[in-house]
């Protein structure tokens, strides 16, 4: 890889970002996280109250990137076969035929993922990790690229099921979606008060996305920076008053991938400490097991993560 790729490298991803920004008012962090996760090849978990355009952002991303999009509304009575598909007996053919489920799309929105029991959530695991699903005796490859964007509502805990840590770990990032500012809310009223505006269409292609991914993987991470990434993740495993379990090595890989994606979108062929520092909270927040004392002592997990990140010396 040489530095020539930097010339104009981030232009196309930025076009996609601008298209998303033209649809969604505010939510800069969410939109950037979607783009970075798309380039880093990871799945994204969005957590926020209802009505903050989480679903719209995912639909806009799929439409702008010219990819197939499926939405699955997670409910307590959902079955694994409702996600991956099933085999039905074709009476005319006298044989079983496979009906592929909604997971077979480039961008899958798992809406309110924590409303379905663990066996349904786990139906996503194989697809998220191995990019394939097994239906009966057959294994089917998922479309490439394949991204799961899941949403969670932190307010209504009744009737929800906590996501297993193994499932959480498979999400590259968890993004907290917050309320818009007063100015942004005014613009939301202007834009969405009347007829629903059209989603951006085919701004880039899935082939573009695959090319970005290949180029982003080649972004250079200097050894001192690699060490910084390892130190950051290791710091979460040190004994801590409020943290029972730290992040896994998958977090180390995720942090490096996300730092590379950020550098790529910025048009650089090398990552900087700021890329790592900026990516760290989103990569770590869903991978740490906070204990009951965070609740009794009213300690904000975000503040704890910020403290850990600040305690590690950047190169």
């Amino acid at each position, binding site marked *: 890889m*040489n530095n020539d790729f930097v010339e104009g490298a981030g232009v196309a991803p930025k076009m996609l970002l601008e298209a998303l920004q033209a649809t969604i008012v505010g939510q800069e962090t969410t939109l950037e996280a979607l783009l970075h996760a798309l380039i880093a090849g990871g799945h994204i978990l969005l957590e926020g109250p209802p009505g903050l355009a989480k679903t719209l952002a995912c639909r806009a991303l799929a439409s702008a990137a010219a990819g197939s999009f499926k939405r699955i509304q997670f409910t307590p009575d959902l079955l694994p076969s409702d996600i991956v598909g099933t085999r039905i007996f074709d009476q005319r053919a006298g044989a079983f035929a496979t009906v592929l489920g909604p997971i077979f799309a480039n961008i899958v929105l798992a809406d309110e993922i924590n409303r379905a029991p663990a066996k349904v959530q786990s139906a996503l695991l194989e697809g998220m990790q191995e990019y394939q699903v097994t239906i009966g005796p057959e294994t089917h490859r998922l479309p490439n690229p394949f991204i799961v964007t899941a949403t969670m509502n932190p307010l209504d805990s009744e009737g929800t099921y906590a996501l297993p840590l193994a499932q959480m770990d498979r999400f590259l990032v968890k993004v907290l979606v917050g309320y818009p500012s007063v100015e942004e809310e005014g613009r939301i009223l202007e834009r969405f008060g009347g007829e629903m505006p059209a989603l951006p269409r085919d701004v880039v292609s899935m082939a573009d996305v695959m090319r970005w991914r290949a180029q982003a993987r080649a972004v*250079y991470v200097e050894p001192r920076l690699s060490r910084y990434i390892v130190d950051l993740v290791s710091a979460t495993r*040190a004994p801590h008053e409020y943290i029972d379990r730290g992040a896994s090595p998958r977090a180390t890989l995720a942090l490096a991938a996300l730092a590379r994606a950020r550098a790529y979108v910025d048009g650089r062929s*090398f990552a900087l400490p*700021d890329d790592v520092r900026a990516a760290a909270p989103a990569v770590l927040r869903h991978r740490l097991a906070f204990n009951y004392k965070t609740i009794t002592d009213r300690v904000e997990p975000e503040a704890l993560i910020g403290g850990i990140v600040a305690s590690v010396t*950047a190169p």
Partner: protein
Amino acid sequence: MDFLAPIVAPAAAQQLPRIHVRSFTMSVDPATLRVGETLKLRITARLDENLLQLDNVTLPDLAGFESLGDERRCGTNGRGTLCEETMTLTPTEPGDHTIAPTTLEAIDGRTGKPSRFATNPVVVHVTPAPQANPFALWLLESLGILVFVAVAGYALLWGFRRRRLPPLEPAQPERKPVMLPVDRLAQLLASLAQDPSRVRVLAVREELRRRAGARDGETLGDLVARRAAGGDTALTDALGAIEAPAFVDEPYVVDEVKRALPILERLLTAAAASA
């Protein structure tokens, strides 16, 4: 030494403390200097335990340097310990000196096994001390002889008259020339322009961060955000420009240095103008 006590032989595993080492690093400031100038070698250990001192630390061989002293401290905030050893050294020979990693032997709290932790190595680039001009030496010698003859003649002339000479004023201690920050940066930039290597890039980066008042381990983003009210755009631009050669892949360091140098030189011009 209190916390960085060198060990003669590896301590037995059962004697080693069980600790969680968060970071164990070594840095040098400045990384480029001349023979006779001084540098600070800093070894920092961050632990999760609360300790009063840190044992079983082996310092590297400091051949090519003379130690002028050291400072040590170990502080704890109840939730961990920060131990720091700062050695003041002066290089005795020119060249690139690699100071090998400092090691720490302990039971790793994460694995429960006896482990040897090591810092990063550091590289110090030492240039020769300025050479005296032969013409100037000849001139000084000639002047010395003339002064000697004049003083001898004066003594002979006045000695016979037995007049008391006024008491001599006490000699003033010789003052070493003080290197201004601008000079130091200029010197580092000149070295970088001559030899655009990563070592020199890191020396310039360190100096710029020092000038900007960067805290230990602060990223550029944090630093710029904190300094936002400062308004020293030349320094901010220079800090941004030096990041690329500091982190780009090795084959592209030279290209990135070429891009950064005009921005760095603008800082020098601005600093000289304000001085």
